[in-house]
């Protein structure tokens, strides 16, 4: 038997809480249990003591505002679905809320029709599978989508985004015909894309001109991929969560250094691991001073970003008289690339795109 869904509703307006508690608990087909909180601190203590499926939060509240609650809730309860329901029609707050990882942003409904749409969206959000880190148009896992597309004999192109890296899977008449990611194609690219643990995807119309490069059936592909991922995770026990073993990572870093050393305009490259020590580098006699700057700058501006509630830090670029430096980040590590001072913004952007694609893959 499925467990009852629990919704936590946070707003400083008691009339609003009473009304929406009744609406949500009686008109959603899953008949969820709805709890209310009139302050951010009360909501956080309820989240701490009870498990919730969904948090619906207002933004404009005294003492602790909705963005502060969101920032804490997102960090402490990454599986919690979050919907903003507010009267604020301001694009900046919408952007900041999405940057902080909310699932939906709603203006408080002002008509029956809007209320109906809101209830439908909540119903749909609650019915999503709890598993899988992918968020996409259908709110299904990537494997689910591939299976659905293939079973229904569809033709489409799936575009998958994992941080700054993109991948594509071409499906023609229910068969996976090609894949592309991080400079590789066909089956290895398919396996690479499916190894990504988080990301988002979109479905685009079919591309009938795409030549077939994968000849294995989709069931065989999914089976091979699951096997490859299991084997990679089993290389070093205890490292399964990170997806790749440190040894493999060091090898990949060395390959990246070799490739980057041949790129025009790049002066140096420094890859720093999770422990923030200078891990691998090229073009630097002594990486320690630059590593110190990277460490200090990343920590400092990440903390500032959290305090300003402006979402993830995406990139830092520094310009000096002798060189330019760009920092990029992934969950595991930081990358610092030094460019010649004469490098243009466009050259840096293009080179960084190439490097990040190779790095993340």
């Amino acid at each position: 038997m499925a467990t009852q869904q629990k919704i936590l509703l946070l707003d400083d307006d008691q009339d609003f809480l009473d009304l929406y508690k009744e609406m949500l608990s009686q008109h959603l087909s899953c008949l969820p249990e709805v709890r209310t909180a009139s302050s951010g601190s009360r909501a956080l203590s309820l989240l701490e003591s009870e498990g919730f499926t969904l948090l619906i939060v207002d933004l404009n509240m005294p003492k602790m505002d909705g963005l502060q609650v969101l920032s804490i809730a997102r960090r402490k309860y990454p599986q919690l679905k979050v919907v903003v329901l507010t009267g604020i029609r301001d694009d900046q707050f919408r952007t900041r809320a999405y940057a902080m990882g909310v699932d939906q942003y709603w203006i408080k409904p002002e008509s029956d029709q809007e209320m109906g749409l809101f209830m439908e969206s909540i119903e749909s959000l609650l019915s999503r599978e709890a598993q899988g880190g992918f968020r996409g148009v259908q709110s299904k896992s990537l494997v689910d989508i591939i299976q659905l597309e293939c079973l229904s004999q569809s033709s489409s192109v799936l575009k998958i985004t994992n941080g700054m890296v993109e991948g594509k899977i071409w499906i023609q008449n229910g068969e996976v015909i090609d894949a592309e990611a991080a400079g590789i194609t066909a089956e290895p690219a398919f396996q690479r894309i499916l190894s990504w643990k988080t990301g988002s995807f979109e479905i685009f119309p079919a591309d009938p001109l795409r030549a077939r490069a994968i000849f294995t059936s989709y069931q065989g592909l999914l089976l091979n991929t699951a096997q490859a991922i299991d084997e990679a995770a089993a290389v070093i026990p205890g490292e399964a969560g990170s997806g790749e073993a440190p040894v493999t990572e060091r090898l990949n870093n060395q390959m990246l250094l070799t490739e980057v050393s041949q790129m025009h305009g790049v002066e140096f490259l420094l890859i720093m691991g999770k422990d923030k020590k200078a891990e691998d580098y090229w073009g630097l006699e002594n990486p320690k001073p630059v590593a110190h700057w990277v460490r200090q700058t990343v920590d400092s501006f990440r903390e500032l970003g959290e305090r300003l509630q402006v979402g993830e830090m995406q990139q830092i670029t520094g310009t000096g008289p002798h060189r330019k430096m760009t920092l990029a980040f992934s969950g595991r590590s930081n990358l610092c690339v030094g460019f010649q001072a004469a490098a243009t913004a466009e050259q840096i952007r293009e080179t960084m795109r190439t490097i990040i694609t190779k790095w993340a893959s």
Partner: protein
Amino acid sequence: MGLLSLFSKPKEAKLMRLPSGSFTMDADGKIMTSTLPQSFPESRMREIGQHVLASFRVARQAQVPLSEVIINYAALKLLARELRGGAIVFIMPQTLNQPGRP
């Protein structure tokens, strides 16, 4: 109703919009000029400025002096230029509808 509303406690909302604008800070961390609205607290400006000055300082110590640093967040861009030991900092909130946004 009008009379009652005089006695009702006004809603004290704390949500703060990030403004667009710039400010300058000297080498000691003192705010010199600002084009930001007065509603944006000076303490917040100082906080941003301190992070920027620290980044310039550590870069100098690391023998990679910088004259400009740009920090891109999902919903904000900060651009800071070194200014005789201090800095000028531009605050540029980013929105989803912004043209050219990736």
